[in-house]
C-alpha cells in the first residue's frame, strides 16, 4: 500500500515536473506547446515571443495569372487555343538591414518551375548591389522581365532566337550606378553563373532537336558570364534617353542529342547587344511615348541540327548571326496604350535563314491590377509559309508589387 502511494506520488511529482519543463516529447530547441486559448491582445502562441508560428515576419506575397487565347494560321500550329500560360507566385522580405530576398515560382498548370530565387545584398556601400541566387539575365531592356510583364505578347524574335525565351542563371552579379552629371546615371553589372543557356520551356512539347548544355562542373574560366553598361539621361523636361550595351558569354558548352545520344562538345558562344530607348511622358504624367531599338550579334557556335542517324553527333552551325528589334509604344492615358514591334533575326542554321516578326497590340488596363491585351502578329521565315496569330491576353496582379527603375 505504502509502496503504491509512494509510486503514485512519485508519478504525480514527475508529471508536474514534466509539465513544468514542457512536453516530455518536446524536441530540444523547438517551441513549447501552449495550452488554452491565446490571451486577448497577445500573439497567437501566448508566450510573448515571436515563434515559428507567428506571422508577423511573413514576407509580402504576390500572385500573377497570365491567360492567352489565340488563333493561328500558317506555320506549324494552326487553329484556336486557350491556355493558362503562367500562374506566378512570388514572395519577398528583408533578411536583415542589408539584404532582401525573393522568389518567383511559375506554373503553367502542368509543372512548377522556380524562375527566380535570389538575395539582394546592399551592404557593400551606396549604390552597390550584390545579387546571389537564381535570377534573370541582365541583357538589354527586355530580358530581365517575366513574359507577362512585357509590352508585347511574346519576347521579341531576336531575343528568343539568340538568348532564349526566359534565361535565368544561378550565380552572382555585382552592379553599381553612379551619376555622370545632374541628369545622367550610369550603371554597370558583371555576373558569373553556372549556366546562362535557356531552360526548356515548361509544358511544351517540342520537335526533337539538339539541346545546348553546359557541364555540371567546370573550371572558373568556363563559367558563364554576363555584362551590361547603360547610361540613362534626361532629355528636356519630360523625356529620357537610354543607351546600353550587353554581353552574354558561354565559353564552353555542348550540343547533345538526348534521344540519339550523339554529342559535340568544346563549343563557345557570345551574344552582344546594343540598345537605345527614348521615353517621354506629358506634363500630367498620364500620356507617354516610348520607342527603342536593340541590335544583337550572335557569334561562335550558334546552333545545331540532329545528326543523320541516331547516335550521330549533332551538326553544329558556327559563324556570326545578326538581328534587331524595333518598337514604339504610345500610352494614350494611364489605361490605354497601342504599339508596334518589329524583329528580324538571321536564324542559327547553316543557311542563315532570315525571319521577320511583326506584332501590333492594344492594351487596356482595366485597373492598375489587371489588363486585357489584343495582339496581331505575323512571322515570316524565308522558305516557309508565313504564319499569322491573333491573340487575347488577360493578366491579373494580386498582392505586393513595386515600381523600380527600368535599367
Amino acid at each position, binding site marked *: 500500500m505504502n509502496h503504491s502511494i509512494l509510486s503514485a506520488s512519485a508519478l504525480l511529482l514527475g508529471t508536474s515536473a514534466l509539465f513544468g519543463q514542457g512536453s516530455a516529447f518536446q524536441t530540444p530547441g523547438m517551441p513549447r506547446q501552449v495550452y488554452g486559448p491565446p490571451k486577448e491582445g497577445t500573439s497567437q502562441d501566448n508566450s510573448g515571443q515571436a515563434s515559428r508560428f507567428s506571422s508577423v515576419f511573413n514576407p509580402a506575397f504576390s500572385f500573377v495569372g497570365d491567360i492567352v487565347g489565340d488563333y493561328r494560321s500558317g506555320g506549324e500550329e494552326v487553329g484556336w487555343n486557350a491556355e493558362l500560360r503562367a500562374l506566378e507566385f512570388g514572395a519577398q522580405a528583408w533578411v536583415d538591414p542589408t539584404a532582401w530576398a525573393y522568389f518567383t515560382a511559375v506554373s503553367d498548370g502542368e509543372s512548377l518551375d522556380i524562375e527566380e530565387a535570389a538575395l539582394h545584398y*546592399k551592404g557593400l*556601400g*551606396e*549604390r*552597390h548591389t550584390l545579387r546571389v541566387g537564381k535570377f534573370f539575365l541582365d541583357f538589354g531592356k527586355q530580358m530581365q522581365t517575366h513574359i507577362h510583364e512585357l509590352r508585347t505578347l511574346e519576347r521579341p524574335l531576336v531575343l528568343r532566337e539568340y538568348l532564349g525565351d526566359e534565361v535565368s542563371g544561378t550565380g552572382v552579379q555585382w552592379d553599381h*550606378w553612379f*551619376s555622370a*552629371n*545632374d*541628369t*545622367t*546615371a550610369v550603371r554597370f553589372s558583371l555576373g558569373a553563373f553556372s549556366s546562362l543557356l535557356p531552360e526548356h520551356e515548361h509544358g511544351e512539347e517540342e520537335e526533337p532537336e539538339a539541346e545546348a548544355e553546359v557541364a555540371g562542373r567546370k573550371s572558373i574560366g568556363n563559367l558563364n558570364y554576363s555584362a551590361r553598361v547603360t547610361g*540613362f*539621361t*534626361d532629355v528636356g*523636361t519630360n523625356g*529620357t534617353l537610354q543607351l546600353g550595351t550587353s554581353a552574354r558569354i558561354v565559353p564552353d558548352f555542348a550540343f547533345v542529342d538526348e534521344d540519339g545520344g550523339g554529342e559535340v562538345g568544346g563549343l563557345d558562344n557570345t551574344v552582344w547587344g546594343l540598345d537605345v530607348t527614348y*521615353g517621354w*511622358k506629358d*506634363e*500630367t*504624367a*498620364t500620356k*507617354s511615348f516610348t520607342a527603342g531599338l536593340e541590335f544583337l550579334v550572335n557569334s561562335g557556335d550558334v546552333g545545331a541540327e540532329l545528326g543523320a542517324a541516331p547516335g550521330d553527333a549533332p551538326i553544329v552551325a558556327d559563324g556570326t548571326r545578326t538581328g534587331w528589334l524595333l518598337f514604339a509604344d504610345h500610352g494614350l*492615358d*494611364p*489605361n490605354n496604350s497601342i504599339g508596334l514591334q518589329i524583329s528580324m533575326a538571321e536564324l542559327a542554321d547553316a543557311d542563315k535563314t532570315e525571319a521577320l516578326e511583326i506584332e501590333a497590340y492594344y492594351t487596356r*488596363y*482595366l*485597373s*492598375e*491590377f489587371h489588363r486585357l491585351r489584343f495582339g496581331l502578329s505575323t512571322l515570316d521565315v524565308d522558305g516557309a509559309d508565313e504564319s499569322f496569330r491573333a491573340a487575347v491576353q488577360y493578366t491579373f496582379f*494580386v498582392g505586393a508589387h*513595386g*515600381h*523600380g*527603375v527600368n535599367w
Partner: protein
Amino acid sequence: MRLLTLLALVLLGLSAQAAEKLKVVTSIPDLADLSRRIGGDRVEVQSICKGLENPHFVGIKPSHLVAMSRADVFVQVGLSLEVAFVPGLLENCGNARIQPGRPGFINASDGFAAIDIPGQVDRKLGDVHPQGNPHMNLSVEGGAVMAANILKGLCAIDPAHKADYEARHAAWTRELEAAQQRWKKLGEGWKGRKVCVYHQDYAYLIRGYGLVTLGSVEPQPGIPPTPASLASLIATLRKEKDVCLLAAAWARRSELEEVRNQAGVTLVELPNMCAGLPGTESWIEMMDLLHKRLAEAFGPQKGT
C-alpha cells in the same frame, strides 16, 4: 596680389557657404515651397513633381535618382500618395541619409488626421490607400501639418540653425493664418453646395466646407469609368441643378466633357499641387486659386 588673395578668400568663403547648404529633395512642389520658406538660404530645394502630374503615375527619371543620391533631406507627403515613384527611388538611390527612420527622411503627413481610412483594405475598393485619403496637401489644415513636420525635420538635422528655421516658420504661419481667414470667408456660403469629382483629390475641402458629393467619374479611386458607370453618373447628375464637376489638369478630358455636356454641370479645373497652374508658385497661392475658382463656380448669390 593682395587683391587676388582677397578675392580667392571671398570665393572660397562663398563656396564653403554654398557647400554647407542642405540639399533637400521633395516629392511634390508644395513641400518644396514650404521647405524653401522654412529653410531660407540654408537649403537648396528640388521637387520631383512639377505641379501638373497625377502623383499616382509619376515615372522615375535619371535626374530624380541623381538628386536623391545627393540629398541630405527627402520630404514626402506619405499616406501612399507617392507610391508610384518614392519606394523605387529610395530603394535605388543608395543614399542611407534619407531612408525612412533616418533624420534626413521627413514624412510631412505625420500627425495629420487622414479621412476615408478603409476599414478593410481590399482592391474591391479600387486603388485604395490603407492610411486614408492621401491628398492632404489640398486640405486647409494640411499646410500647417506639412510645415510643422518640415520644421521638425530641419531642426533635427541642422540644430545649429534651429532659431532661423523657427523664425521663418513663425513668419509663414502668420501668412497662413491670414490666408485661412480669406478662405474661411470665401467658403462661408458653400455648405450644401453640390459637386461631382473626377478623383478623390478634393475630399478634404469637400468635407471641410460641407459640400455634397453626388458622384465620381472614377467609380472607385484609380478605376477608370466604364460606359455603364458614366451613364449612371450622368443620369444622377441630370436630376440635380447647379452641380460643379471638380477635376485636376490630369483628369481625362474626354470623360469630363461627356459628363459636362450630357449632365449640364459646370466644369471647374482646380490645381492639385502648387507650381502647376499660373499664379500658384507657393502653397498658399495654390490654395488661394483653388478657393477663388470654387467661389467663381459657386457664385456669391448661390450661398446658403
